[in-house]
């Protein structure tokens, strides 16, 4: 699904003494099938932006286009249900997303709500619980008796159970252990490729943005100040620093190596695996730019 934000502004508690502007003139085009990362420091407006992507928030100014649906400031929104079925959001704090008495029921809720037959909903729930590393015995527990990491997995399973075509992820792995992070990021990537999803990832992990995304946008003080491909964005460390961000660890390490070598490597590497390969070529004297 093609997503466009045109000159989007948003104010919380608009026209009250508590009015708080969170977005200013945001322009962003997320083409169907792309993997878009959104980065930016805390309070820069990322979560506010994401909530426009399924009509949870309506823009105070500007236009949000979700596929064929146009949501325009000041106009009455049309029926959002079809679009909400297609756009799955995993929120920053998964506890807010959980409510049912058992984990199984919680995961099944979304599909049931959108008319998926009970048997199919349960099948999906069990498969996903397994894929997300939730043990069988957890399914009958209350979601509120789980550890934080397990709650997050339940919330993610609940969203994936709707089989959305757009996956919107607000720091989906915060609080997961390292293996869990990697497994779940790999699962998202796998689904993205296999099902041709459009994926929007808000993350504090520059490493994840560099590894998985094909487009990166930077939010800063409520504005979308920069967007482009990961190589351009992460290669410009001065610019990143202006927005209180740093390059991924592997990029900073590459810079240290280059400082020691006294010359740059042939290409900027966005993952550890790429850098190991590039350095081994350099060691063997296989540089291109000699």
């Amino acid at each position, binding site marked *: 699904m093609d997503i466009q934000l045109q000159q989007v502004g948003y104010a919380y508690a608009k026209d009250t003494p508590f009015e708080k502007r969170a977005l200013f003139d945001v322009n962003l085009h997320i083409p169907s099938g792309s993997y878009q990362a959104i980065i930016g420091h805390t309070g820069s407006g990322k979560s506010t932006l994401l909530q426009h992507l399924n009509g949870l928030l309506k823009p105070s100014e500007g236009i949000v286009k979700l596929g064929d649906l146009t949501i325009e400031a000041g106009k009455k929104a049309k029926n959002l249900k079809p679009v909400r079925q297609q756009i799955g959001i995993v929120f920053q704090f998964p506890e807010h997303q959980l409510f049912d008495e058992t984990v199984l029921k919680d995961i099944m809720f979304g599909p049931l709500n959108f008319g998926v037959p009970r048997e199919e909903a349960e099948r999906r729930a069990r498969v996903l619980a397994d894929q997300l590393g939730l043990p069988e015995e957890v399914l009958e527990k209350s979601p509120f008796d789980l550890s934080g990491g397990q709650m997050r997995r339940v919330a993610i399973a609940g969203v994936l159970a709707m089989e959305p075509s757009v996956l919107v992820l607000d720091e989906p792995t915060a*609080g997961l252990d390292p293996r*869990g992070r990697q497994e779940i990021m790999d699962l998202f990537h796998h689904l993205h490729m296999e099902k041709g999803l459009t994926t929007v990832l808000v993350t504090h992990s520059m490493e994840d943005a560099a590894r998985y995304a094909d487009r990166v946008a930077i939010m800063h003080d409520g504005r979308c100040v920069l967007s482009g491909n990961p190589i351009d964005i992460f290669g410009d460390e001065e610019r990143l620093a202006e927005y209180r961000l740093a390059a991924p660890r*592997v990029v900073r390490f590459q810079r240290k190596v280059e400082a020691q070598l006294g010359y740059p490597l042939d290409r900027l590497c966005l993952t550890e695996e790429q850098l190991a390969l590039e350095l081994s070529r350099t060691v063997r004297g296989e540089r291109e730019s000699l």
Partner: protein
Amino acid sequence: MTEILSLHEVTYTYSPEEKEARKAVEGISFSVNDGEWIAIVGHNGSGKSTMAKLMNGLLFPQSGEVRVLGETLNEENLWEIRSQMGMVFQNPDNQFVGATVQDDVAFALENNGVPFKDMVVRVHESLAQVKMEKFLDSEPHHLSGGQKQRVAIAGALALKPRILILDEATSMLDPQGREEVLSTVRKLREETHLTVLSITHDLEEALLADRIFVLNNGHKYAEGTPQEIFSRGEELVALGLDLPFAMKMGNLLRANGVALNNEHMSEEELVNDVWTSNFNK
């Protein structure tokens, strides 16, 4: 070195009525010295939060003993001891009571009988320490996730505790916010001899601790200096944990045929080794 906190064969289960129920933590013993920085690592569900709650009396063990500041923690001394401990949880939302940010930070102080004059100063100081002084009158619920967490940390710092327990408290912050909070805590520790127990998945943070406790399935798996713990390498990965960047990078370089003399935990050492073993022979 004097001990400030210790656990002795502590066992806890959330469903004590069920005989077969899995224990959230089982037979855990360790001792923390006054002024130490301890990192606690372990997979999700390994019992870290349960252990943190046992340490400040939010939970009491079914068997074993928790000792804090020389006393066995019990219902009678709980409040006295808790006033010496600051605790910050992973999810800030459940921690707010005040209508504004400054009320919220003041609340804990008021509860602990801090005089009004000192209270105002401490509220401002601690909010400045986490760079949230501009938000004194904001409603906590209107802050972004990371901002909320900084307020929660300010609330704990305002108490000037002897022991600070951080339960994945920085996991919702951006990298710079995380670094700011951690260096604030480090500075405070130098000035006030604070003891820190930090539950974390961030191995670069754990690398800077005095000692690391590793939990696995409710049991203590290992304890030692970062050097001792991380030299276990792949064994940690099998527990669902990770290795510091320099170690992972070093392993990948070796696998790709780049010569290295040693295992390294710091990037600087690794860069040097890459240089001397391959380019400057």
